[in-house]
């Protein structure tokens, strides 16, 4: 219905956008960026300054936190703090990789489905529906179990879990963008469908996926840890955070073993959340739908 077509549009001539709405937003975005860069720096430079080696026995067994061992030591006398820092090398690349792959697959399939419709859409969306009907962890567990443990296989499992979300998102976006007049305009000048998809549809559909990807990064970090916690992720002795928590869970009264990796997950997940929120603001996309 074009009921509104005759209404003059509100010319929102606001100042050029560059920063975030509220001080809170600014604080969170800065916090997000700081923490993320902290982990990035840690990840890259760690080998040069880490207090200990992640696999070496140092100090005594299950020592409580002290100045020598900020977060104590574990049962094999390894420094928990050092291991937690090294954990970033496991978790972060995997999480980013999962999201990149999921977004790529989701974008390709979702945009094909949304743009061409017909049987392509049916097939893709059925696949999406079926995959989404599995609670993610069941699916990841099943896939990881089928492929065997290991971070690599957990990686595949998580990509399988995540791509449909993006496929659905992108498809929705593509369908929305598809009805914009500039697509019709592109058709009317005789552009091919590929060109339209590439130049006119995808660039406009991608923003929400990007924002979602940032927000989801935190969730992937958590799922990675979860799979490791269930024994389906990283193999020992790698200092993966979830695996460290599993170790720690056995030493319930030696609480420090599990605390540091938990905090690491928290900071990473939260900062990605902040970044995603900030990005959403910066790119000015509605939170909804």
């Amino acid at each position, binding site marked *: 219905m074009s009921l509104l*077509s005759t209404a*003059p549009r509100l010319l929102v001539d606001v100042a050029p956008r560059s920063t975030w709405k509220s001080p809170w937003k600014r604080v969170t975005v800065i916090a997000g960026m700081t923490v993320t860069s902290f982990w990035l720096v840690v990840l890259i430079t760690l080998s040069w300054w880490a207090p200990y080696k992640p696999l070496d026995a140092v100090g005594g067994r299950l020592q409580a936190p002290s100045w020598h061992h900020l977060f104590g030591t574990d049962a094999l006398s390894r420094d928990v703090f050092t291991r937690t820092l090294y954990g970033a090398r496991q978790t972060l690349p995997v999480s980013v990789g999962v999201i990149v792959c999921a977004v790529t697959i989701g974008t390709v399939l979702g945009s094909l489905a949304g743009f061409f419709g017909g049987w392509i859409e049916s097939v893709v969306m059925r696949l999406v529906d079926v995959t989404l009907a599995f609670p993610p962890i069941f699916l990841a567990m099943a896939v990881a179990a089928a492929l065997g443990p290991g971070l690599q296989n957990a990686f595949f499992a998580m990509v399988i879990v995540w791509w449909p979300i993006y496929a659905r998102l992108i498809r929705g976006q593509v369908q929305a963008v598809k009805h914009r007049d*500039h697509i019709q305009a592109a058709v009317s000048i005789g552009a091919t469908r590929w060109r339209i998809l590439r130049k006119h549809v995808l*660039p406009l559909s991608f923003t929400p996926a990007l924002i979602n990807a940032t927000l989801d990064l935190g969730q992937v970090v958590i799922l990675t840890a979860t799979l490791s916690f269930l024994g389906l992720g990283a193999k020992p002795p790698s200092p993966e955070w979830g695996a460290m928590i599993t170790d720690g869970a056995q030493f319930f009264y030696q609480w420090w073993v599990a605390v540091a990796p938990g905090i690491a997950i928290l900071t990473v997940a939260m900062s990605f959340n902040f970044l995603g929120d900030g990005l959403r603001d910066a790119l000015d996309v509605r939170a909804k739908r």
Partner: protein
Amino acid sequence: MTSTSIEAPLVQVRDLVKEFEVRRSSWRTQATTLQAVSGVSFDISAGEALALVGESGCGKSTTARCVLRLTEPTSGSVRFDGVELTELSSGELRKARKRFQMVFQDPYTSLNPRMTVGEIVGEPLLVHGANAAEQLARAAELLEQVQLGADAADRYPHQFSGGQRQRVGIARALALSPDLIALDEPVSALDVSIQAEIIRLLQHLRDELGLAFLFIAHDLSVVRHLSHRVAVMYLGKIVEVARTADLYSRPAHPYTKALLSAAPIPDPLIERDRVRIVLTGDPPTPVNPPSGCRFRTRCWRAESLCAEVEPPLIDIAEGHKVACHFNLWS
């Protein structure tokens, strides 16, 4: 100006029908059909401006889109310069598109926000095989033509006002030097003070370039300034077609008359003394149109015949057609 020549008109539309499947809600699966355009026929000669007017939802845009085959018509024929458009393959159609272009109503959604104005205007050329240099030169030329200035090329749409954006849209439509441009309410989204600029630009283009226009509007006063002939649509059908001056001075269809009388005139002295025909009710929905004459439910002249027999569109004077059993001339 009107072409009454022997040669065939540029565009010949016959019995155009377009149906949409509408789903009532997401979880009920049965669909109903909605006939947005139900058997529309008209001609446009080369260089002629034909206006389609009518209330919201009467099928104007759909008609235009079907003519340009931006939507597939359900049935009917559209001949463009002797070529049956509805039968072209997609490849042929893409080539044929050079000759007919479209300008859209909403200057905000009709431009790709991620492309510069230069790219937008140059894209038609690119698609049809021009090289970069040609494209650049032509884009600059076109931007001058729509009075934007060539330096606009490097900027993005959001940096322009509505009127300026609409000029970009027009420049894009002109890029391939088409023979026909369909304009879907090109000024209705614009502020009054800016409307005039676009109307002037269009008038200018019409006279300078000799293009045929299919001009869609709901505002009768705008149409009057731009078109040679006017077709009035009501609920998917054309109820009256006539030369502009004829239609405004002597409307034959009660609906046309009501439409004219409802349009306010910005002059208090005149406006207060006008005799108005105020129609009752709203236009019915195309999902379930009235039998016989579709206007009869709101027509003050309707009789029982109107409910039974659909009035055909007949010539009542040279070039003046009306679809009414009891037209105002009789």
